[in-house]
């Protein structure tokens, strides 16, 4: 970022945190965190889920108060008791989840977000100026529900820019964007930084940080474990700092020779659950023995609906819409489908894939009783259940006190390993998983991905629904994209470029270049 104007070397940093600590009952979310951000610098805060990134930015933005440590703003120690105080200092924040009213226009939403009342015409003029100077494409009179996610994010950015911020905090801004939208966002952020505004960029995506940021502070377990120049440091090294152990690579991916179709879906249409469910429209695909089929797509385009339609939690209109090893199952319930060899893992662990208040052993009964003799004739065999749960814990290296531990006591990654182990341990003919490594630390993610590859190698068909393109490119043999409840025909991953996938995903937002995705 040579273009960024830098203050003189002896000038105080824009923001300096010194030994910030924050505890919640049972966890030290932040411990002695110190970092400083210069004027015009794009500074990454990098860390796994649970590393303490969110707590740290909430302290900077005044949402939460630190237990100890101090914050200096342009060299002066300040206290930031509220977000309003933060904004008065010149700190703006774009949250991961937007707070917008769908039924109102862009300009109305911006007016609502301001601290002081501003005359409507004056506001229009100011917004127009901001949009123009950063060449942001956004129509102030459009209603929010007609906008794409990227456009909605721009509203939040404009909201911040109107306050002429000196520091802009971006919390995981790319989690719901397509690759093209990410590029566009980065251009805007570079321009903002070039005009002297510092940016604190919160993320766990290394390639983004490498592409965008000047400095990276790496957090692990609430502490700073390293500071580096991401342009110089290798991705692998940063990942290892972030995870705290050496990365394992996945063996045997893309190696499968696809056999016969084990799961065949044809013309599957299903109304979404009211009020906001996505309708599935004429979905057709085959998952073949020995292969991993990836389904990419931006969140909320029918992934959850597709999973519950496949698992049998919602039933289709005609039995032939889903064929499992040649047998029609689209109108049979979840239990029968499992017995026939179709296992599914939904995205949400707590309360969907597992019951938080149940022990691991009880959670094993939840889905494994159809294929394993855990409860013959309706009588639970506690010994068999415990043995199965213990076997899963051992095989998938689940860190826990044992089968009697309640599911809620496990970290997200460990619970996900248990759930994946529970399903893989039943040796299903077809496994459908949604977001298999969502919120899971990298070590556990690698183990889960390896297990999926191994399962396919044994002749099962694996379907991975994920928003993480890197994951899909690493695992999948063939890839489809789901948008607005429609599925594109699968393409072999080997001859697919990431830009092409981005274009397929872009179709969701009605941008003209994405129209090809519907073909």
């Amino acid at each position, binding site marked *: 970022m040579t273009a960024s104007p830098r203050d003189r070397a002896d000038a105080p940093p824009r923001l300096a945190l010194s030994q910030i*600590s924050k*505890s*919640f*009952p*049972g*966890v030290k979310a932040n411990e002695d965190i110190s970092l400083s951000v210069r004027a015009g610098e794009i500074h990454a805060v990098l860390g796994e889920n649970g590393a303490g990134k969110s707590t740290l930015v909430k302290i900077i933005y005044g949402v939460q*108060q630190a*237990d*100890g440590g101090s914050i200096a703003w342009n060299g002066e120690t300040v206290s930031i008791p509220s977000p309003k105080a933060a904004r008065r200092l010149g700190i703006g924040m774009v949250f991961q989840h937007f707070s917008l009213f769908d039924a109102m226009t862009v300009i109305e939403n911006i007016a609502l977000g301001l601290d002081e009342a501003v005359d409507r015409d004056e506001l229009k003029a100011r917004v127009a100026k901001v949009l123009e100077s950063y060449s942001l494409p956004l129509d102030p009179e459009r209603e929010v529900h007609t906008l794409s996610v990227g456009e909605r994010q721009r509203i939040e950015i404009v909201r911040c820019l109107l306050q002429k911020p000196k520091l802009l905090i971006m919390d995981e801004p790319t989690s719901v964007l397509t690759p093209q939208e990410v590029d566009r966002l980065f251009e805007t952020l570079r321009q903002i930084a070039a005009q002297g505004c510092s940016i604190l960029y919160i993320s766990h995506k290394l390639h983004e940080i490498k592409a965008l940021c000047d400095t990276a502070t790496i957090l692990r377990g609430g502490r700073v474990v390293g500071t580096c120049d991401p342009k110089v440091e290798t991705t692998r090294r940063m990942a290892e700092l972030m995870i705290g152990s050496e990365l394992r690579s996945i063996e045997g991916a893309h190696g499968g020779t696809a056999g016969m179709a084990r799961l065949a879906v044809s013309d599957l249409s299903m109304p979404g659950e009211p009020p906001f469910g996505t309708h599935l429209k004429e979905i057709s695909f085959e998952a073949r023995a020995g292969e991993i089929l990836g389904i990419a797509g931006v969140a909320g385009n029918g992934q959850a609906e597709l999973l519950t339609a496949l*698992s*049998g*939690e919602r039933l289709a209109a005609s039995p032939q819409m889903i064929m499992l090893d040649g047998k029609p199952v689209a109108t049979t*319930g*979840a*239990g*029968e489908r*499992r017995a026939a060899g179709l296992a*599914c893992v*939904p995205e*949400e662990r707590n*309360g*969907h*894939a*597992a*019951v*938080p*208040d*149940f022990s691991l052993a*009880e959670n094993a*009964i*939840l*889905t494994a*009783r*159809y294929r394993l003799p855990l*409860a013959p004739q*309706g*009588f*639970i065999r506690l010994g068999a259940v415990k043995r199965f749960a213990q076997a899963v814990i051992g095989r998938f290296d689940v860190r826990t006190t044992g089968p009697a531990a309640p599911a809620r*006591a496990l970290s997200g990654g460990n619970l996900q390993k248990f759930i994946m182990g529970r399903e893989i341990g039943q040796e299903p003919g077809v496994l459908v998983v949604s977001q298999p490594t969502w919120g899971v630390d990298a070590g556990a993610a690698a183990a889960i991905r390896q297990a999926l590859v191994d399962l396919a190698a044994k002749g099962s068909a694996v379907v991975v629904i994920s928003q993480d393109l890197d994951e899909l490119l690493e695992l999948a043999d063939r890839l489809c994209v789901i948008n607005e409840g429609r599925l594109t025909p699968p393409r072999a991953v080997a001859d697919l470029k990431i830009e092409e996938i981005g274009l397929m995903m872009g179709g969701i937002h009605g941008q003209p270049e994405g129209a090809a995705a519907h073909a």
Partner: protein
Amino acid sequence: MLEWRRRREPSTAMLYLSPLIAIALTMLMGTIVFTAMGYDGLTAVYDFFLLPLLEPQRWPDLGVKAAPLVMIALGLAIGFRANVWNIGAEGQYIMGAIAGTGVALATYEMSGWWILPAMALAGILGGMAWAAIPALLRTRLQVSEILTSLMLTYVAIQALYYLVRGPWKDPDGFNFPQTRMFTPDQTLPIVIPESLVHLGIPAALLIALVTWLVLEKTTAGFAVKVVGLAPAAARHGGFSAERTTWITMLIGGGLAGLAGIFEAAGPFGQLTPQFPVGYGFTAIIVAFLGRLHPLGIVFGGIVLAATYVGGEIAQTTVRLPQAATGMFQALLLFFLLATNVLITYRIGLKAKPAKVAP
């Protein structure tokens, strides 16, 4: 200063202690209220809660009152665990008694061992039928079973009044609004000679044991718990919430109906307008006092039975009004719900937000 602090983990100790704390607070508050009203508060509370438990000659009466409470509460607890809120057990209890009495009146001039089982069966079916209405409305039309089951209670009471004053009035009863007395073949046998202890008491204990086994050891019990704790996970695991609603409503109605006919064929020996004494409502307190656990419910049933027995004692000893029983029960439910907060929170001294180790 004191403050509430959220516990990291819900407290298991408090899960079992809080009902006892609620009982203690009820006794304390009862003492204060009745003293303030000019009664001998301490004696009143002693007679109410402790005398029935301490004097062995009161135990049979305690058992007679606890049996229907336990039976109804067991059925309700199964439903409550599955998030099925059947508040109308009183109506199902009355309908069970009516259905069983119907069999009794039809078999008035017959004799045989089969009559009492037939009455019990009719009682179960009557309660089930009355519970089936809210179940149907909830599963088909998403109508809250809380409202429908509660309102149907008053329909059941009116049905009882109509029958005992009209078609079922005892022809030899000097125009009193009551049915014929049941014959010996229609009456619940006494299991301990020369006492009030009838077959309903061991039956209630047996049902508690079976309920416990079903909840802990079968997939049916598992289904009830999953549907209540995590409906989406239940669907994922292949359990049907609709089916569970039906089964738990029918079990709750069936057990209330059985309790109803046992009460009619036991202590009452006939149907009268005084038959509904609120066991169906009190059983809700019993279920929660027992933490929805079958063995806890046996304990809860005895405590609430004591308030009925103690209420009668205190009417004569300290001349407390009969309504005092209801007041104590309401106090107990109030404190029971209030002390629930101790499971997830603890009280601590307010400290400066310094670095206090968790």
